[in-house]
């Protein structure tokens, strides 16, 4: 039902081109997922601030919204989405304001670094609409989708974000997500869709919330989640890949001293700089791979 990509920059020069590379990677998988696309990029953080990516109806006037709230640092509209930066201390106030003044807006992602965009359309069009090719960042993940329902809507598009600076994309099909969803609902998580990927994202957020590292949280998911899955996960500083123990869904990785990249098919990686000399491998089943900016 889809193609997924991920890119983690090891040097500043690549980080400066991260969006451009991610856009090329996404576009290459268009025929795997022509219905909708999405991506998240971990952009340079603003000191003392948090970013909220908002999505609204076509033609929404984001600037007009921000005009009324001078405490907000800034708002950057891109089509139906906008990145709103607010002082961290004012985050809950900002949420309340949005809920009251702009109930038609949805907060698709929040974080110090993470900006998240997703929409109906071909991946190249979606990427261009949100100017992915100009974005800079330490790491990013993306997804192109073949909708399983007939109506192609934004619901069901990945990445899913269920925690600050956290997001996940998924290729495959979980088989016990309904009972996992119920357990997470009992813990207070709320779900916008029936989608299995949303459950996986919330599961990870719940595990991270208990203090587990990304590595440990993904390790636990191997035990708790059933089905066929390849996950690519982003956190504020982390970038991770996991395949289920049977590993039928395709997955390829490439690493140089400048980047670590993931693609559902090798052709997603062909245009990366230095790919000819890269170490290329297919991730082992039931093995958590994590790269962290801090290390």
């Amino acid at each position, binding site marked *: 039902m889809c193609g997924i990509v991920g890119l983690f920059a090891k040097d500043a020069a690549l980080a400066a081109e991260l969006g451009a590379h991610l856009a090329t990677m996404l576009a290459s998988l268009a025929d795997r997922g022509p219905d909708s696309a999405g991506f998240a990029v971990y952009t340079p953080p603003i000191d003392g601030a948090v970013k909220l990516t908002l999505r609204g109806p076509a033609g929404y006037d984001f600037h007009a919204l921000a005009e009324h709230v001078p405490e907000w640092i800034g708002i950057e509209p891109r089509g139906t989405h906008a990145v709103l930066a607010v002082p961290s201390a004012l985050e809950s106030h900002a949420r309340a304001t949005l809920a009251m003044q702009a109930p038609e807006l949805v907060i698709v992602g929040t974080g110090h670094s993470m900006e998240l965009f997703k929409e109906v359309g071909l991946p190249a069009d979606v990427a261009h609409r949100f100017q992915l090719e100009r974005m800079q960042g330490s790491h990013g993940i993306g997804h192109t989708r073949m909708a399983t329902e007939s109506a192609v809507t934004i619901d069901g598009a990945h990445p899913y974000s269920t925690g600050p600076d956290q997001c996940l994309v998924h290729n495959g099909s979980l088989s016990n997500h309904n009972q996992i969803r119920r357990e997470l609902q009992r813990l207070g998580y709320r779900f916008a869709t029936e989608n299995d990927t949303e459950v996986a994202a919330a599961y990870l957020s719940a595990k991270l919330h208990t203090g587990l590292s990304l590595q440990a949280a993904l390790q636990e998911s191997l035990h708790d989640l059933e089905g066929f899955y390849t996950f690519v996960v982003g956190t504020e500083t982390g970038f991770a890949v996991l395949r289920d123990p049977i590993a039928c869904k*395709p997955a390829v990785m490439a690493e140089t001293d400048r980047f670590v990249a993931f693609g559902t098919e090798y052709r997603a990686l062909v245009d990366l700089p230095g790919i000819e000399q890269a170490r290329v491998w*297919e991730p082992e089943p039931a093995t958590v791979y994590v790269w962290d900016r801090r290390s």
Partner: protein
Amino acid sequence: MTQADLARVCDLATASVRELNQMLHDLGPDTNATHWQVLNPRGRHSLAAGVDAAVTIEIDGHAGYYCAGMNKLATVVVHGNVGVGVAENMMSGLVHVRGDASQAAGATARGGMLLIDGNAAARCGISLKGADIVVKGSVGHMSAFMAQAGTLVVLGDAGDSLGDSIYEAHLYVRGTVAGLGADCIEKPLADRHRAELHNKLQQAGLAGQVDVAAFRRYGSARQLYHFHVDHADAY
């Protein structure tokens, strides 16, 4: 005039995969278009799938899924990597991958040889039905799963669950095997096996470069040929 001068060139930057495959399928047994060069494959799928002619096809770059799928008689050389299912259900001929192969390389292949210079990923030779596969690098987990006939020769290592549920295919691995699958055991390397292995290595152009004695043979314990409750765990 050299062979290269006579090569038909198909540039996928301007031609479609459909056009390429149709040209290859239209070749008669007496064709003089015996050498083809495919440019700019850029990971496209089903390149040279369903060929049934004794011609040589060189693909300059990376191929996607099912490259040379169900190949008959042709020699297909890929100067790059291939995606899932290269040479799946191949009937005869030679498919040579200069780079790496993704999952299910040589899946259900029934004849001919698949030669991979780099590594093959998971499920190499899955459900093999008589072809010969030679991998100079390593193979991933579940390789030779339910392999029925043919040979898999691996100069590097093999991943977990090698030969799970294997029937009668012969497996030769020179490096380490991470783990054997259900009903797959190590077996003695008798003279006839050395001869077979030598023969396959020779066909792969490795004669004299590799010592057959360095390989170990793996095959079926044949405990699953008739259902018995005590082996229920293995099913």
